[in-house]
């Protein structure tokens, strides 16, 4: 049975700096980790300290995906051309290359997260709560040890609307955690 846990930050508490923890979520054997409390920020920051899945054989579908919701997390946008993303991968073997899609149903943003091969990463998300702007992401991963490559890149959800929930998911069962922060502007 999938297990999960949440830990909430000090929204509305003492001013401990402008990088403000909203929530930390962990999961073991889960298909998705969602955040439906985004606070009120123009810029969000997410850390993924470690994440692996139960996939074997390095399938493409073991890369981490992201979707957005405009209805508080009841549904997540998944149209075939709702998102665009572009990543540069850099490999220890000396190669590097482009991984991109200009019309996709999600934002793909990490190397393959195979069983026993965890990946760590951070991501910035921009304009989620702004109904007049696209929602953008920039991200950077650590090296995936088995594949010997890391990613950095960007994504966009190409509808200007308020996003009030986000979903990190994988086609395989995930074990790991995310922490969501807001960056306050005053």
């Amino acid at each position, binding site marked *: 049975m999938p297990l999960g846990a949440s830990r909430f930050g000090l929204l509305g508490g003492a001013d*401990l700096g*402008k990088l403000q923890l909203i929530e930390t979520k962990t999961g073991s054997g889960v298909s998705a980790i969602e955040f439906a409390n985004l606070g009120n920020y123009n*810029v969000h920051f997410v850390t993924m300290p470690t994440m692996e899945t139960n996939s074997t054989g390095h399938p493409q579908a073991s890369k981490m995906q992201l979707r957005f919701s405009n209805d508080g997390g009841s549904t997540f946008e998944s149209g075939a051309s709702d998102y665009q993303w*572009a*990543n*540069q991968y850099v490999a220890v073997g000396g190669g590097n290359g482009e991984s991109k899609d200009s019309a996709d149903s999600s934002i793909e943003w990490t190397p393959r997260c195979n069983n026993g091969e965890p990946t760590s990463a951070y991501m*910035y998300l921009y304009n989620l709560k702004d109904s007049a702007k*696209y929602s953008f992401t920039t991200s950077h991963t650590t090296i995936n040890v088995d594949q010997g490559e890391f990613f950095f890149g960007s*994504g*966009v959800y190409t509808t200007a609307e308020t996003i009030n929930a986000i979903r990190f998911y994988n086609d395989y069962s995930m074990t790991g955690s995310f922490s969501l922060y807001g960056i306050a502007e005053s």
Partner: protein
Amino acid sequence: MAVGNLEFIKSASGTSVSSLQITDCFNANYDVYKVVIDNDNGSNNDLHIRVINDSGTVISSGSKYDYANLELNSGGSFGSNKNTGFNEFRGIGYQATTGNVTIAYFYNPHNSSSYTFAMSQSSSVYTTQLRGGKSIGVYKNADTITGLEINEVNSDFTYINVSVYGVK
């Protein structure tokens, strides 16, 4: 006063402007700064950024800027843009017709014994296609830098918002 990890220093904004200066945002209290830039413009291009020294002078000559950028395009080949001994930073962020967002870090700007280093990540939409950006730069003069000037290319900013934080 905030005493946490990321401390807000200053913000500046403009609408229908060709340039925005954010002055007195770098000081002796921090070595590392996070700069958040959000803008919209009538045309697509690199942002042009110059540093401001403690005399209030915008450094726009003297072959002191090096930079290198990677452009990550969702609908085409990736590109690069680089220069050495230039008169400004180009590509620490973009201007774009459907918005651009940038997180940049500046290192040691206020240290008169050090060059000022920069790195950034950006995201924008260029005529329906995503353009991500990753850049590095260095201002090769050991000056006391206290601010930035951000300039448009070919078209005024519809709006531009900049926030600066000190990193503890």
